[in-house]
């Protein structure tokens, strides 16, 4: 491996070529048995019959998926019509996650751009400042958000104190509170990939555009944005995917009217009233949607890599 030194750390060293099976065994075993295995088990459970005290009876059934998509009336003997309850909950989750993603993009893009144009030695400090809150317990962050936003909370006190408003603004238990909570939960996932893309961007292109009398906003829209698009797409996916299945933000900030997939799934496994196969089926549908989005983005990314040469 004399070439290793010449080509630096990028060369793929193979010192442990013969031992890699043993080295990989623990991770394969733990993740295979306790993550991949359970997901397969969940798929099986979604096709089983529900037991009334929680749990399942080992008998094949399509009831869980049928309940999700079709309404067969109170006694189950009417001709099936589309059941909108759960589709609406999924649709709301997609919508809320989309709004949170947009909010993260609108705030996160300028932030990432600003950080990437700082002097090189202070950039890591900025990135660090943005990521610190992410490492604080999500539950604590969400509770803190609720404390700040509630009707008698510090935000409303402050706004009333300054005379901007007369009576408190109701934010908690609205759609907006959930979007704000999701934004707060996942913002670094937007900032980091966009930052990485802007950092690689060649600013001579902006200079060239300016020389050719493009306005600054035209340059941003027509030159910078297309160049950093892969980073933006990655950021949007990294915010959208966890937002869709989130539980804490809708549960604590949204209240009963703003029910999302996470709460729907959680209810199926709580106490005796739940329906395990239905919960498993809802989880499978969520997982399928996420995998489709991830596959789509992987293909886009591959295309972008190819085009970029």
């Amino acid at each position, binding site marked *: 491996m004399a070439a290793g030194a010449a080509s630096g750390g990028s060369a793929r060293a193979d010192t*442990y070529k013969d031992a890699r099976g043993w*080295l990989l065994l623990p991770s394969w075993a733990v993740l295979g048995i306790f993550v991949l295995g359970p997901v397969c088990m969940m798929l099986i459970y979604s096709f089983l019959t529900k037991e009334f005290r929680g749990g399942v009876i080992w008998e094949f059934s399509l009831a869980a998926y049928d309940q999700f998509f079709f309404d067969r009336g109170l006694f189950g003997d009417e001709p099936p019509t589309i059941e909108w309850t759960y589709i609406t909950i999924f649709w709301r989750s997609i919508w809320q996650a989309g709004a949170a993603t947009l909010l993260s993009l609108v705030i996160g893009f300028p932030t990432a751009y600003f950080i990437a144009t700082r002097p090189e030695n202070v950039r890591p400090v900025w990135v660090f400042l943005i990521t610190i809150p992410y*490492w604080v317990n999500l539950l604590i962050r969400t509770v803190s958000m609720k404390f700040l936003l509630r009707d008698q909370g510090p935000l409303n006190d402050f706004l009333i104190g300054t005379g901007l408003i007369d009576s408190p603004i109701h934010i908690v238990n609205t759609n907006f509170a959930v979007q704000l909570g999701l934004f707060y939960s996942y913002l670094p996932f937007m900032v980091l990939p966009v930052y990485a893309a802007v950092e690689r961007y060649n600013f001579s292109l902006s200079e060239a555009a300016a020389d050719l009398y493009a306005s600054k906003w035209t340059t941003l829209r027509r030159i910078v944005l297309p160049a950093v698009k892969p980073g933006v797409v990655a950021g949007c996916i990294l915010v959208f995917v966890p937002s869709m299945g989130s539980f804490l933000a809708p549960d604590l900030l949204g209240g009963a009217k703003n029910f999302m997939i996470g709460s729907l799934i959680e209810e199926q496994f709580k106490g005796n009233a739940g329906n395990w196969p239905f919960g498993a089926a809802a989880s499978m549908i969520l997982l399928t949607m996420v995998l489709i989005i991830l596959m789509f983005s992987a293909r886009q990314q591959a295309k972008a890599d190819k085009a970029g040469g």
Partner: protein
Amino acid sequence: MAHVNDNIKAYKGFRSITLLCLVVLYAPLVIVTIYSFNASQSITNWEGISLRWYAEVFTGPESEKFKVAAFNSFTIAIIAATASTAIATLAATAMVRGGNFKLRTVSFGLISLPLMVPEIVTAVATLIFFNAIGFTRGYMTILVAHIAFCIPFAYLPISARMQGIEDSFEQAAMDLYATRRQAFTKILMPLMAPGIISGFLLAFIVSLDDFIITNFVKGAGVETLPTAIFGSVKQGIKPNIMAISTMLLSISIVMVTISYFVSKSDNTK
């Protein structure tokens, strides 16, 4: 690259948005920290500085519950972080120092699986799995689940670090008749230390902070700090919860800061 004039790079308003962003990120944490020192019985009025809610956490009526929860949280986090760091280090050695192999992409996919699958789905799947094999839920089920989902968080900084270390150091040692094991423990491991420490700390925080998966697999009676806090918050936010939250968020921030500075230190020079 030619130096580009800052006027061309800069956009009006981007600095203000960045500052707004920081305010939004930090305001809730700062506010809760401030109010945890509030002397008042109510969470709304401010009546001066006091440590009474911190005392309440350790001696109050709920203190026993929180002590047990804290013990569970910290022992699980230490064991899970240690185990997942060890597993991740071995995996990274194979992935970064194992040459090209067919199952490389599959292995990477498996390692990052906990990051791709929505957390609530992992939670449901793990619950169903333990139920199907007839394992009673409790401390052990939480621990096993935590070891599994901490692996990618430990793996990422460790493999990034290993990629940054040329294998010429180990080759040199082995040219001088060190065995491969000696090259691993005496050369690679010390050079890897910053990556391993930051991987361990991130895994520790992720385990300490986890709510959703723990909530599903914990079973009746066993609580960690996040599930105990969630249970309390459901009846309303109380000042003692703010005191616990402040302590927990300080621990997270201190550990992330250590991890940041450790991973920045370069000992290959």
